[in-house]
């Protein structure tokens, strides 16, 4: 580097040290934005805040745990976990009713059902059929959650412990909105319909016209905060991440007209748009649709605290999450078609699903990659202070209203501001 003729050494030194970015003080300073438009990164990284989220949000809200097609027959069961990994078992009784129980033996705390899925009529080495049997000491429970067998009950417990008082912990359960099984750990909270606040009217035709069936099930465990993944379903500014979405959407007429509509309880409706799939090399328009969906249509619903219903013309993608820690989440991805699909139709839906949302799809890998590296960037001590959610574009495609309505509800339930978790929510 040469010195400009006549420039003093001091002046040159000053020029070399010119600050083009922000120094620490400026970097850490809050942007002049309202509380609704900023999120403090500590809400993604603080273990204490995570524990409070589990207690105040995940243990108090309705969460889907599986689809009824996974429990089609009496005595079918499905084990799962929710809300910080509370183990549960969902069982269809001989009366056809679906019930959910804590999958914990009231005796010594072992898991009662270990398989992901099965039918209670199949005998296990340690138990007879039609019951859930804890393999450890042989306690048995029927599909209604009653304790029906305690080996050597009288000999050991006399009258102090008896079957009548040792039923399973039952969890509120509803089957609704496209045949999904919803549970709520809070015995006294609002009803499922009240919690949804009518948002599913937007997909009533698509979800309720005829029975659905799961054809794709995928578990994704990522070291990231659960909220990052849910955010990807609530703003499409991040379509810049996806070449597929730029080609089939952003480059097409009407893309920027898509609307978000905030609902009560932090839910958000994601308006209909029409994708031009054939704009992506090698892909074709989607001839198949769901009842009520236009050709190539795409609409969605984002539910607080972390559920997404995404319907792209021929296939429904529903994501649930089980937050494990502030930096680890299990994401369950389901793909659904119509139960009456013939083989050819089903194969077509699966192909469509895989092009974007399968583990080898164009978008899924990019979304998961982005939320994984996002967690790296805001890990404690990295220096990241805020996430900015300040885009305002009349609630359309690149507006961040979907994020703001989420964090408004988050702040209300947590009693602290997402923009500054040290401050109380007014």
């Amino acid at each position: 580097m040469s010195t400009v003729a006549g420039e003093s050494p001091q002046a040159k030194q000053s020029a070399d040290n010119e600050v083009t970015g922000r120094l620490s003080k400026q970097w850490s300073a809050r942007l002049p934005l309202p509380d609704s438009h900023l999120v403090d990164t500590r809400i993604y990284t603080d273990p204490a805040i995570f524990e409070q989220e589990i207690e105040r949000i995940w243990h108090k809200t309705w969460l889907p745990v599986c689809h009824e097609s996974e429990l089609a027959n009496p005595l079918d069961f499905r084990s799962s976990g929710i809300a910080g990994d509370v183990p549960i078992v969902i069982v269809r009784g001989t009366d056809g009713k679906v019930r959910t129980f804590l999958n914990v033996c009231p005796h010594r705390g072992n898991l009662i059902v270990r398989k992901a899925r099965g039918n209670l009529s199949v005998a296990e080495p340690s138990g007879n059929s039609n019951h859930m049997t804890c393999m450890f000491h042989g306690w048995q429970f029927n599909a209604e959650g009653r304790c029906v067998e305690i080996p050597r009950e009288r000999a050991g417990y006399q009258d102090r412990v008896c079957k009548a008082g040792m039923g399973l912990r039952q969890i509120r359960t509803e089957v609704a909105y496209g045949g999904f099984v919803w549970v709520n750990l809070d015995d006294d909270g609002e009803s499922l319909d009240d919690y949804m606040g009518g948002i599913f009217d937007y997909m009533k035709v698509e979800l309720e016209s005829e029975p659905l069936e799961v054809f794709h099930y995928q578990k994704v465990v990522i070291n990231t905060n659960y909220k990052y993944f849910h955010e990807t379903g609530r703003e499409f500014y991040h379509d810049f991440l996806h070449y597929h979405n730029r080609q089939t959407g952003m480059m097409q007429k009407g893309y920027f007209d898509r609307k978000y509509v905030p609902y009560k309880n932090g839910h958000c409706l994601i308006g209909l748009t029409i994708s031009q799939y054939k704009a992506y090399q090698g892909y074709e328009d989607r001839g198949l649709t769901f009842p009520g969906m236009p050709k190539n249509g795409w609409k969605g619903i984002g539910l607080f605290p972390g559920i997404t219903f995404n319907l792209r013309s021929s296939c429904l993608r529903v994501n649930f999450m089980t937050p494990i820690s502030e930096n680890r989440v299990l994401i369950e991805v389901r793909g659904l078609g119509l139960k009456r699909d013939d083989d050819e139709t089903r194969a077509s839906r699966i192909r469509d699903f895989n092009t974007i949302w399968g583990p080898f799809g164009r978008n899924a890998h990019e979304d998961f990659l982005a939320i994984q590296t996002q967690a790296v960037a805001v890990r404690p001590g990295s220096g990241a202070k805020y996430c900015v959610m300040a885009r305002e574009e009349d609630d359309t495609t690149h507006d961040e209203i979907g994020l703001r309505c989420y964090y408004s509800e988050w702040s209300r339930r947590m009693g602290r501001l997402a923009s500054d978790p040290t401050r109380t929510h007014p």
Partner: protein
Amino acid sequence: MSAVLAVPQDIRNRVHDLIYESCLLLNEERWDDFLDLCDSETFRYVIGNYSPEIGKEQFWLDIDFAGMKHMFEMLPKHNTDHAQLTRQSTVYRLEYAPENEVITATTGFTIYRTHEDGGYAHLDGGSTCLYVVGQYIDRVALRPDGDKLTQRTVWTNTRQLDIGSHYPF
């Protein structure tokens, strides 16, 4: 076992060479060279597994030769973790249908993943982990002008693929 013994040694060698070469080419991300091993008219590539959660076989990729070619051509336009996938394979069983000049080969494989920039490159870049365990079920057409893969079914025991991949297995 009898099927293996029934396959003539020269054919066994040809099929082994083809499958091992396919793994090396995929490891080296030489996509066009891999496609040269596949029959452009009939090739079908499927990745599937059995899900005990829904009690079904499921297929996560099912494409033909043209679909695979498109997929490879579009890779530079997509964001990726740039992880290097290393396939270790052993051909275990060959079943020969001489009348059709077709071999069905069952190959056990493991895929190791060497991380690059999918996480914190400063910390994780260069580290390797076991990623996938499964089998290739290959159909090989025996031809005087060069044997070709007509179908590869990648059947995985592993069902958790974390962030997934834009690369075939």
